[in-house]
């Protein structure tokens, strides 16, 4: 009890501290430029169409202005999948598949929902530069389709080697796109494709390409991750 009280005291201090620090940033205020340089947000919004051809400012930022972060982000997700597979690798062998039939609803529903999930996911990452969404949610939606498959059919197993290779190739493609930018334009991840008409599907240069790559990569990674997790669970 004393411990909890102590924790509460600590939390109150930290909370008060964070509150005061946050309060100095006015909520909902106009984002004016602070110093001699333009605020990055304003700069991006004003220049995204001219510079990148993407109309979704967030996507332009994610893929181009801060594309390096996204490369890192992809790497983090890749790491999560790899690390999880590495950590759970040995424990998997001792487990046996459990033979239990999922409900009929599940199985039938999945038959219809799985293609829908794949299509939806692809749509989300293909239109990332136009509408909200993008490679990450798209990839996860595809993975969720596989999750449904896993739930509906206990025996279902995605070919692991295939997943691995897709994942690798997608990652390598991403880096290669960056390197092509480096060799063509002199900057890594440079937008070496045409900008196209803002708002069209085939526009915004490498953004859709990268989002496709990310979508495929995230989809395969998350599928692999879920599969790895699933296989460790089936002994109970």
């Amino acid at each position, binding site marked *: 009890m004393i411990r909890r009280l102590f*924790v509460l005291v*600590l939390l109150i*201090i*930290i909370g008060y*501290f964070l509150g005061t620090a946050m309060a100095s940033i006015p909520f909902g205020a106009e984002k004016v430029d602070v110093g001699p340089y333009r605020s990055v947000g304003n700069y991006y919004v004003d220049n995204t169409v001219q510079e990148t051809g993407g109309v979704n400012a967030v996507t332009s930022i994610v893929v181009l202005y801060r594309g390096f972060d996204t490369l890192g982000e992809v790497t983090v997700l890749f790491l999560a999948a790899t690390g999880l597979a590495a950590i759970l690798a040995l424990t998997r062998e001792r487990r046996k598949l459990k033979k239990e039939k999922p409900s009929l609803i599940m199985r039938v529903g999945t038959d219809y929902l799985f293609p829908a999930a794949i299509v939806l996911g692809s749509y989300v990452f293909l239109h990332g530069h136009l509408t909200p969404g993008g490679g990450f949610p798209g990839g996860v939606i595809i993975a969720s389709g596989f999750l449904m498959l896993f739930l509906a059919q206990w025996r279902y197993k995605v070919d692991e080697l295939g997943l691995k290779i897709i994942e690798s190739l997608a990652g390598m493609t991403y880096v290669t796109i960056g390197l092509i930018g480096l060799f063509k334009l002199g900057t890594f991840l440079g937008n070496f494709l045409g900008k196209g008409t803002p708002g069209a599907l085939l526009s915004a240069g490498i953004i859709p390409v990268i989002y496709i790559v990310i979508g495929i990569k995230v989809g395969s990674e998350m599928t692999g991750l879920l599969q790895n997790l699933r296989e460790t669970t089936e002994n109970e």
Partner: protein
Amino acid sequence: MMKLLYFIGCFSGGALLAFLLGSFSPLLKKFITFLAVILGAVLFATMGTSTYQLSLLFGNQVIFGIDTLTQFMVWMTLGIAFIVSLVLWSHSELSPTFFALFLLNVLGTVLIFMSRDIVSFFFSWELMSWTAFGMILSDGWEKKRSAAVKYFMWSAAGAYMVLIGFSILFAATSAIRFENIVMSVGRVSHGWLITAIAFLVAGFGVKAAMMPFHVWAPDAYSESPHPFTGFFSGILSKTGVYGIFIAFFYLAARLEAVPMLRVHGTSIFGYIMVWIGAITAFGASLIAVHQEYGKKLLAWSSVSQLGYIIFAFGIADSLGMTGALSHALAHALFKALLFTILAGVIMRTGTDHMASLGGLIKRMPLSFIFAVVGGLALAGIPMTIGFTSKWIIYEAGINGGYIFPTTLIFAASTAAFLYYYRFVYSIFLGPLHEEHQNVKEVPATYWISYILLAIPIFYFGLYPGKLVGIISTILQSYNLPALTTYTATSVTTPLGTFNGMVVGLGFGAALIVGLIVYFIGGRVRKAASQTDKYLAGEVVTNEFELHYSVDFYRFLERKLSWLLKISAQKFYEFIGELIRFVADINRKMFFCGNGQAYLYYMTIVLTILILSIWRIKP
């Protein structure tokens, strides 16, 4: 510049070669070591007095220089190193690492004497320290662990005190060269200057085995590889002496800029050193008297003799300085001789436990004779260098009016007689042990080295003026008071004149008369066998430990037991226990193993930081 590099290269290259090639052939490692020392000496002889600069750190010039003091110290070092390398010819069992480290150690020691700035000095100092540790380590370690760890810990502590002292001087003067520090030392605030010098003297005092920093010395000396011990105790301790000289008399100019309480014509600082020196000399020789092992005995004797030097440094007038420096040489010579003799005895008999030895005069007469020579020098008998230096030190004490410390020093000399007598008697005299019946005399390398060491011992004993002349040149070059009235055989001090030749020859004559009497009278005496003793009517057998050298001075021990109970060792053990306690608490608290506790610590630290910065907030 090039000569210095050759000199350094000679030793470090030799070390590398000895290390790499030594495992192929034992002859090679000995030969390389021997050659490197000789080559180094030749190179040093050609270097003369000059200054060398090396660009090492940030393109800054690191200065090495040679002046008269350097020459004095370096020749002493190289001389003893030569003796050791000579003796090492009979020691193939030592590992190549030992030979390599020995060369590096000699290099470090020489560079200490040559360095003229903080960086090179500290570099050489640490080099000398750790290579000595490495040598103890290279030679089988099972039972020497505590001694070696103790040595390493103390020498690190000493080196770090030196480092702090130097860095304060650097921070205060922004200079790393000694000459620049000396120039601007007047501008340093007195508090900082005293702090710096106190750190320096304490740090060097560790190496010079000054009480209360002496606890490592007896163990380390006695556990170091036997041929090396002479160098260890004779020369490495002198680096501490040299450091005190540099710090106190050169860098701080005897703290004369600082108005301090003056006692007996010296500063309070010097006065403290006088007392420390006297207590070290007396206390250590009392302990030496009770040692059972030869190396331990000589080790404590080293501590005691170094006390003389500190004592004389504290007096800091012309007599004191001369006495200190001449005793530095004297101690190096006779301690190297005694340790080498002991190394020979250990090589032949395998032990330095004095109760297991005895009667070796019959098997190793040469060793005995030189042990007597070394002992004469140790006890300060005329005709030897020990007399010269000790005499000057006594005179310094008397002349300065330090009644009590000088009394202690006199008493220490008496004790030196006692332990020296025990040393020679238990090892060489008395009945011969049966297992030592077939012991041979030491090999040629040994007795050659004995002779080489004995020559200067007698030379400077008979011609004290020569020694005083060298030292007074050194002292004058450092603008320190020096004895200027001397001829080759005599030295005139404020208290009078003594003529080394006359006193020495007179004593020599008396000695010869004594010997004649001994041989005439001794013929009647019949030697008893080892077990020719009776205990309550029972015949004593070999298994029975009733040797005359067991508890040789038990009566003394009984009388002085109250004094011997005062032990710095116990205090340090208490400190060590305390640190271990704190360490365990720290370990069990911060690394308790519970992940959540770590998160707690994180949150607490966050809170503490928050609370502490709220104060700063405007």
